[in-house]
């Protein structure tokens, strides 16, 4: 068995035996704190996940013992930091099963990764009248960059509709793909509804028509993992901080052949082969897209987060989160007046809801005083909120460290809201 195959297996099954959420919680220092003298019940991991000690310690150790700029300098520290930095790239490659590590571009965020594709691939490959297909359930980060490109290039944005359950209309999707469609940019999993989209089908249908595909994996990768070779997407973007890693680092995966044909995104240090005032030649991929000093500590921290997830095993995490979602759906459904948005047969880890005519922000404020942290708002998906004709919803999201007791705490805090609002 070669090393990559063995590592892939580890990622799925985990190297630890058994998944014990109470043991896992000990890895996350913040989970032992109190909020307003109540134990913290953190149900906002879809916005940003908490960090395990393994990530925190790795980042502290990097800054304390092994820090210097990367890809420069011949001294020991720079060489060590570079080794660690590039090892993290390998970790990402392995985690998503990319063919080569040079297909991994580190960005500031998933948002920047989408913007990179829009600016570099989009400007190069799109002409006036060309079409991009997105969906009704996209995060603003997978809408606005394309709108900006539309303004610049005169391209057309088409939107795949969804049904009341929050499921993509796949017939409509197929019909939207025409001779002018150049790109499909769709989320792996809705951040506001939890819907898991049939991304493999989406990629296959689009590729049959020669259309490039970008998948927004911010939510999908944290709950489902991804094998980019099996998926065959041309681009897959995600952020580090939702994967239990630090903020300030995102990942753009792109197929090598496509990345190689793309011009640089930003100019500066670290992305050049040689600069004279007459001419500059650029480095190959991925460094061509990584101008300036990268988020060194954060990238290394992300590597530690992926190692941590590998240890637990994605299958065990997914099973635990499925149990929480099922339990929470049942518990919350029993609360009178509570309506759940997003009831797709394929969904994960997110419960979006409203309660009667109580505004989500009032709900958020009241349950916060019980130590329960949820997101109340439009989840950066206003077109989706418009679809359901609501300004906002409350979103509880479940991560690997949440427990059934925390779901109970949420339910009891919601009943408190009902007491206040009568």
């Amino acid at each position, binding site marked *: 068995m070669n090393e990559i195959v063995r590592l892939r297996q580890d990622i799925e099954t985990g190297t630890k035996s058994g998944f014990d959420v109470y043991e896992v919680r000990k890895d996350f220092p913040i989970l032992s704190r109190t909020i307003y003298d109540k134990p913290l019940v953190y149900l906002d991991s879809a916005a940003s996940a908490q960090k395990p000690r393994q990530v925190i310690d790795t980042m502290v150790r990097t800054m304390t013992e092994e820090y210097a700029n990367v890809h420069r300098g011949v001294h020991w520290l720079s060489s060590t930091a570079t080794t660690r930095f590039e090892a993290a790239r390998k970790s990402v490659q392995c985690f998503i099963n990319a063919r080569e590590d040079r297909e991994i571009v580190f960005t500031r965020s998933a948002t920047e990764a989408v913007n990179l594709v829009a600016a570099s691939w989009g400007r190069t490959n799109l002409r006036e009248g060309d079409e991009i297909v997105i969906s009704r359930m996209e995060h603003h980060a997978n809408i606005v960059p394309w709108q900006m490109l539309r303004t610049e290039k005169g391209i057309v944005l088409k939107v795949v509709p969804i049904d009341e359950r929050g499921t993509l209309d796949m017939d409509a999707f197929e019909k939207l793909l025409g001779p002018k469609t150049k790109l499909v940019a769709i989320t792996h999993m809705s951040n506001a509804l939890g819907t898991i989209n049939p991304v493999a089908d989406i990629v296959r249908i689009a590729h049959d028509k020669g259309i490039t595909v970008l998948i927004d994996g911010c939510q999908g990768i944290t709950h489902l993992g991804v094998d980019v070779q099996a998926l065959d997407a041309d681009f897959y973007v995600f952020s580090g901080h939702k994967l239990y890693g630090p903020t300030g680092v995102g990942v753009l995966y792109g197929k090598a052949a496509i990345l190689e044909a793309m011009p640089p995104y930003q100019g500066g240090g670290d992305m050049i082969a040689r600069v004279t005032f007459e001419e500059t030649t650029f480095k190959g991929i991925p460094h061509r897209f990584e101008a300036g000093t990268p988020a060194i500590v954060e990238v290394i921290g992300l590597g530690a987060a992926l190692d941590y997830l590998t240890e637990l095993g994605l299958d065990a995490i997914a099973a635990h989160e499925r149990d929480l979602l099922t339990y929470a759906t049942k518990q919350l459904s029993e609360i009178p007046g509570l309506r759940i948005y997003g009831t797709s047969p394929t969904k994960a880890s997110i419960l979006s809801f409203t309660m009667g005519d109580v*505004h989500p922000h009032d709900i958020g404020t009241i349950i916060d005083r019980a130590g329960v942290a949820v997101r109340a*708002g439009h989840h950066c998906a206003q077109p989706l909120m418009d679809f359901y004709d609501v*300004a906002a919803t409350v979103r509880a999201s479940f991560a690997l460290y949440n427990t059934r007791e925390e779901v109970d705490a949420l339910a009891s805090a919601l009943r408190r809201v009902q007491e206040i609002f009568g």
Partner: protein
Amino acid sequence: MMDDLRDLYQEVILDHGKNPRNFRHPEDANREARGDNPMCGDKLTVYLRVNPDGRVEDAAFEGRGCAISTASASMMTEMIRGKTEAQVKALFESFHEMCTKDDPEHVHHEGVDEEAMEKLQVLAGIRQFPMRVKCATLAWHTMDAAMAGARKTSTE
């Protein structure tokens, strides 16, 4: 902790939140402005009829928002009616300080309607909820923009 919540969600607020006063679009309004809170997606429109002397003859609003923003808008429309531009301004500024200043014994602006400020004290609990201050002040900022003749405002 429950005291803070009770301070914020008093009966008066819940009542105004559920049954907002002057929740309508007067056809003879001569000034209006739209307010957005991009953080939560709340939006409301404030309609005013201001006579040539600068006195507010009618004030109303429409839109959707949380209990706090709706109650604040509702109370505001009741209070600014009959007031001159200067009186409205003084009330707005006093209210704004009440919501944002740490010192509960905030300085009222000269000429402010003390009775109105007394009533608005029910919203003073918002100081304990910094993330929600914008909910309480959205209608007021929007009204201020409408008075100034602007069409749109935002609390961001």
